């Protein structure tokens, strides 16, 4: 398929919710009227200064935005050691791990719960993998006093006990999903089943920039606060834009949030980092590298699947990247060549996790550890005056138990 280069990379989706051949609204008829209503309400909210003002007020005073933009001197120095003279780009981080609840997920949850209330919905559901989106959803539900049910794969419930407890503390009901492998995709199936049965009063807060239109668009818009801030912060701090943006990708919400405001800055390169798990020839979760286009969970995108279109289980050390699909806008950005995509393995992510702890005193989540691993490969290949900006989209408190296990440490 040949795709012409558009004049702007920031005009999609089209009115049918498509990003090129990707995206769309592949849902059961029961949900279709609701999806259409959500789109109408979202258009109104987007144009409503009062909605925007409330969103921004909550981001500032409840979430703690803007998040800092941070130059990482010791990591930069460490990576330059392996580089040729004159090489070794500067590494900067967008510190979204400092948000309330410890990840970028809260940005989107604030936006969606405001939409839910605007639509008069009285009950919230969500899916979660690592638990970060579940915690963020439970948080906003507590803040606004709405009952909340979180669907979480039974396997993930075991892997992410601290987050399960957090969600319960916040008043959410956590439903373990035993279907399939009991991970994120099964949780999403179950959330969709609940939604179909409760459309009249329930709002589904989807955690990533995927699912049926308008979710990929509205999640992107809410997460774009990351890129808008980063762009303004770069200009005010050093008077220029970064040379390369780097972000980890599961569904891709932190990445699209960072990338989107820069998409029409032709000199800014972008690198999305998928989870290569045990390796691309083994079990992994890199849909773009190892999948092909298909239809799942309401959208057309790259999927890990067999020749009959049966969906394969993803694998990643990071529960948040362990999903066999990817947001449709990323599928399109890959196809038009605007963003480059790569992948790193569990082992590389673990190494990067430890490197950041030791060099910068920051314990990252395993998801951005994938982005950092890609940065460790990229920085030595670029000149010293170049700037890499990576999204540090979550903190690692939730991951210390599984990291300890992988390192053979009992805690």
């Amino acid at each position, binding site marked *: 398929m040949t795709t012409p280069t558009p004049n702007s990379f920031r005009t999609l989706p089209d009115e*049918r919710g498509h990003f090129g051949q990707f995206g*769309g*609204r*592949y*849902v*059961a*008829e*029961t*949900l*279709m*009227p*609701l999806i259409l209503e959500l789109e109408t309400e979202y258009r109104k909210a987007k144009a409503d200064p009062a909605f925007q003002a409330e969103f921004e007020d909550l981001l500032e005073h409840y979430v703690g935005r803007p998040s800092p933009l941070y130059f990482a001197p010791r990591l930069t120095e460490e990576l330059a050691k392996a580089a040729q003279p004159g090489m070794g780009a500067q590494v900067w981080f967008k510190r979204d791990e400092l948000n309330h609840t410890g990840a970028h997920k809260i940005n989107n949850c604030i936006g969606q719960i405001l939409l839910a209330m605007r639509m008069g919905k009285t009950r919230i559901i969500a899916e979660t993998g690592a638990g970060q989106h579940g915690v963020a959803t439970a948080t906003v539900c507590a803040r606004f006093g709405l009952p909340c049910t979180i669907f979480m794969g039974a396997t993930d419930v075991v892997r992410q006990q601290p987050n399960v407890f957090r969600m319960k503390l916040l008043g959410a009901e956590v439903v373990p999903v035993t*279907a*399939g492998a009991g991970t994120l*995709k*099964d949780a999403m*199936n179950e959330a*969709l*089943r609940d939604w*179909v*049965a409760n*459309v*009249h009063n329930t709002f589904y807060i989807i955690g990533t920039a995927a699912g049926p239109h308008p979710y990929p668009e509205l999640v992107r818009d809410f997460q774009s606060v990351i890129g808008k801030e980063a762009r303004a912060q770069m200009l005010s701090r050093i008077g220029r834009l970064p040379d390369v943006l780097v972000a980890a990708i599961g569904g891709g919400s932190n990445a699209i949030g960072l990338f989107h405001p820069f998409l029409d800055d032709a000199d800014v390169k972008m690198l999305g980092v998928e989870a290569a798990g045990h390796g691309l020839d083994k079990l992994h979760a890199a849909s773009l590298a190892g999948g092909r286009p*298909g*239809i*799942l*969970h*309401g959208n*057309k995108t790259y*999927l890990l*699947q067999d*020749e*009959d*279109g*049966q*969906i394969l289980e993803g694998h990643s050390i990071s529960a948040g990247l362990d999903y066999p699909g990817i947001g449709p806008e990323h599928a399109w950005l890959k196809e038009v060549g605007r963003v480059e995509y790569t992948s790193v393995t569990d082992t590389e992510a673990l190494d990067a996790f430890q490197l950041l702890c030791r060099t910068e005193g920051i314990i990252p989540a395993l998801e951005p550890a994938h982005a950092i691993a890609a940065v460790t490969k990229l920085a030595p290949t670029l000149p010293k005056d170049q700037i890499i900006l990576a999204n540090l989209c979550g903190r690692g408190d939730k991951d210390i138990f599984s990291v300890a296990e992988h390192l053979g440490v009992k805690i």
Partner: protein
Amino acid sequence: MSMRLTPSRLSSAFAKGHAALVCFVTAGDPTAEATPAILDALVEGGADVIELGMPFTDPMADGPAIQLANLRSLAAGTKTADIFRIAADFRGRHPETPLVLMGYANPMTTRGPEWFAQECEKAGVDGVICVDIPPEEDPELGPALRSKGVSLIRLATPTTDEARLPAVLEGSSGFLYYVSVAGITGKQSAALDSIEQAMVRIKAHATIPVAVGFGVRTPEQAGPIARVADGVVVGSALIDLIAEHGANAAEPVRKLVSALADAVHSARKDVA
């Protein structure tokens, strides 16, 4: 381009002077080898239309019973090629009974909609129900099916309002599948008066027959629905029998279908 006999098998099934019994089972559950005998039992029991489910790893619109049927089938190694073989063999044994495939978009479109439509035509499949392709995404499958004379059977639900019905009916043929509850398969059932009201609403727009499904398990439920609808769909109750009896499910399935068929076929006489 196929030449369809006039009237088609599907329209004949709804023109027998009584409501049609539509029976759903999942292809390859418990195994691809066991499915033909189960399909024969459906026909012998009196089913007017066969819905053959295509198993999918992620059946988002199905309740626990059909989810498990999907997983049993896939675990037994059922491939798309097996499903078309089952359908083609069925057509050979039962030249008059319409067979429709029901399933999800990805397995249907993964080799391209044209490939799928052509396989349907070759196997004598009369129609296709795709859960997750609403009218808005029709280009993904509809044109290919229509060009091969295979009916695209759409779903209408309690959330499908008057304004939306024409779009749902546009491009659909064979029959309209009315999902009587907003929910997943095999769970709660709808009150009869709500089904009756929906039929009035839909019949104001529809020129094709309307079959009612979701939550219909017993002859006692099916009979009254058959008085107000053109067809009644039963699925999860049959799937439960297959789950219980496995490779020996044909006989208990035939018995239940026979009781359902009696109730559905005689329903209109009861009120006459």
